[in-house]
């Protein structure tokens, strides 16, 4: 439905700021790598096990102290450890679901753009139908259908509800590319459609997919946090940033450390992803980036 020319697509690409003080790519890249390493290194960085409930004394939320730099949650568990371990879940779920979404959406979009005609129309209408159902609603209904949702299920669910934009934009890209000479040449040389798709078009799609993936990761992190906040994400006692927020959220409450630290974690990850996406867009601007 969103027919758009490649140049002025709905999500237009900013051209490179060809000015001396370019914001380099490596700053957000380093930040992402740092986040990823923190997540991976959580077992070594965390002072105590994240699910450890005090065996004696009062089980209650307490404000930050030397022993617990981020305080404890209502079950007496160390918030710092939980945030570190939560990084693995939030970032892991985010990355994997986005990979799924980008992969799936990319395929659908490429096929639609390449084949054109009826296939294209049907696929794009399918996308419209799915877009018409609010994502949160869909997730709520489907989580109700599943009796127990393991982490893998959550990843699949988030992935399969996040591919629509990818499909649309990849399709637009492919259609633009199809008009180019090298494609005509390849076809004239007798290459099969699959080969043309794989060999010639996909490399050109990488920039788009990369940027979409990064943006999608930012979205996925927030979505996972929202779901866990609503109580529908990861199962207890597993920590994810959203579940720490949800666990501790007493409205009008004085327990600021339970909303501040996981909140900062979420915001900084999302910020990093967005900054990275920005930088990538600028970098790839030489090529056609339909995003």
């Amino acid at each position, binding site marked *: 439905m969103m027919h758009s020319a490649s140049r002025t697509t709905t999500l237009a690409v900013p051209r490179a700021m060809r000015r001396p003080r370019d914001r380099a790519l490596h700053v957000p890249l380093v930040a992402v790598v740092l986040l990823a390493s923190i997540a991976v290194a959580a077992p070594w960085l965390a002072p105590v096990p994240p*699910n450890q*409930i005090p065996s004696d004394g*009062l*089980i*209650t939320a307490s404000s930050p102290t030397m022993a617990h730099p981020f305080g404890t949650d*209502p*079950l*007496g568990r160390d918030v710092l450890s939980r945030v570190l371990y939560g990084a693995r879940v939030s970032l892991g779920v985010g990355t994997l679901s986005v990979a799924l979404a980008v992969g799936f959406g990319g395929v659908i979009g490429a096929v639609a753009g390449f084949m054109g005609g009826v296939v294209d129309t049907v696929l794009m209408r399918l996308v419209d139908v799915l877009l018409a159902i609010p994502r949160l609603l869909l997730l*709520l209904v489907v*989580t*109700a*259908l599943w*009796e*127990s949702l393991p982490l893998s299920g959550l990843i699949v669910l988030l992935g399969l509800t996040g591919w629509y934009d990818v499909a649309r934009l990849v399709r637009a890209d492919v259609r633009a590319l199809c008009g180019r000479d090298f494609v005509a040449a390849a076809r004239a040389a007798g290459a099969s459609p699959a080969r043309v798709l794989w060999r010639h078009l996909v490399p050109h799609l990488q920039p788009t997919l990369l940027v979409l993936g990064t943006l999608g990761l930012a979205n996925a992190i927030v979505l996972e946090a929202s779901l866990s906040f*609503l*109580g*529908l994400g990861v*199962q*207890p*006692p597993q920590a994810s940033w959203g579940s720490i927020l949800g*666990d501790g*959220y*007493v*409205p*009008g*409450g*004085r327990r600021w450390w339970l909303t501040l630290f996981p909140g900062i974690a979420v915001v900084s990850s999302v910020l990093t992803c967005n900054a990275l996406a920005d930088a990538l867009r600028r970098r790839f601007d030489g090529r056609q980036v339909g995003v």
Partner: protein
Amino acid sequence: MARRSRLKSGSVRLLALAFAAACGGESAPPDANVQGATGGTVLIGLIGEPKTLLPPLSASEHEQAVMEVLHDRLAEIAPSLDVENDRGFTPRLASSWTWASDSMSIRFTLDARARWHDGRPVTSDDVALTYALYTNPEVGSYVANLLGNIDSVTTPDAATATFWFRRRTPQQFYDAVHHMFIVPAHLLRDIEPAELATSPLSRAPIGTGRFRFVRWSTDGRIELIADTANFRGRPTLDRVVYELFQQTGPALVRLASGETDFVAPLLAQSLPDVAASSTARLVRYPSLRYQLLTFNLRRQGSDRDPHPVLGDVRVRRALSMAANTERIVRAVYDTIGRVALGPIPSKARPAPDSLRAMPFDTLAAQALLDSAGWQPGPDGVRRRGNERLRIELLVPSTSESRQRIAVLLQDQWRAIGAEVTVQVSEVEALVDRISNGRFDAVTNGWTLSPGLVGLRQVWRTNAVESNYGRYANATVDAMVDSLLDTFDAAQRADLIRRVAQAVVDDAPAIWLVEDEVLAGVHNRLEVGTPSPLGWWSDLASWSVKPGQQLPRDQLGLPPAR
């Protein structure tokens, strides 16, 4: 203007009175007829959105909080919740009653002064129609199966309604008067029972209560106003506005900022925040509610085979002994409520209380598991042959407290070699699972009615609807039946003790907490003695402390019609 100054002078007078009374060492009861002592607008934050305010259709507690204020019963139960015969009941719509000599019927004489809010007198037709509606399956009242002992209601004349019973039981009077709120026949007579929900009365009720309905705004507010012409006298307050919230959160914020005067129920975790507030205080209301972890005694999906792990009473006892419920209750419920010791809350257990609960003893628990054949495996989880000691705890996604309880139990049971997984599930899906027996253990709660008839619904063998764990004990069944039928108070007390002990010994559940209802109340409000019948039961006698009136308290009443 005149009203305001009248209120002000009135409150000064009251202050003087109160001062004098305080010096005198006894408190003067608020007199509704003292000029200027009435007034006030109370904003109540109601958690949950009522569907209807028509008594036969009403099903949830938050609906009760509005509906019961607008309507009356024939007679009111005593705060001690005594249900034997008519002991302690006070007249409401019925000014008096007489028992037939064979006790198979009771004649109620309606109060001649009683009027509906639209001015029409209350007649026995109203009582008859009320009974008909409550028991009509098309109306679908959940109270219907509590009225089974009533055979019929006849109306010898306009001021008399006679209830006829099937059997003589100690609770027959309670059955007749407590469950039903009388509705107006002259307005409902011509409506098809199935169409009741669509009738305007469903959302704009006419009742006999001391407050009358004004409006139900579409943005989630229900407003009630004092019924100044009520036969029992007008309430102290002028006006009550219920604000409807879906979650406690926004309501709590408004309580803290002083925009809402009363919020219930509050979660235990709000306790420190409200305690620290300068505008609100905490009030606890007793209740016959308790929370538990119900074990499934049957294999999942089967009606016959025992559960591989939980079917063995030794395993259940071991789990009970390894669960430090004291610690769990302190952690999750703070000081709200006490540890539950069995299926009958302590308030309903007669003194002296001799209930022997399972002690907290991890060593004994482990020994018991050893003797039941569950040996510790290499990874710390006990096994019996090829079977692992695995339990899945099912908790609803809507309850923070229950999720925490589950995590704490998981932690405690890991220490004795049980592998516990916590499964958070959406409520409907959860109910579906437990109704079909596809669970290991679930956190749920029960509110026992004053007559303890709930015992039959929950613990009776083959009581499919509420006995999720398929508990079956013929002795307990017999004892419960006798308990509900006996007229001998001593025998009843004895049976209660024995039933409680028998069920505790069978350990079909982990008894968690008898929680009270926690309410946050604005400091300027006087709410009277907390009653187990619900915080709304004495709404008519709430008042605003003199000299502490806010602008909204001085809105006054509209001119009388």
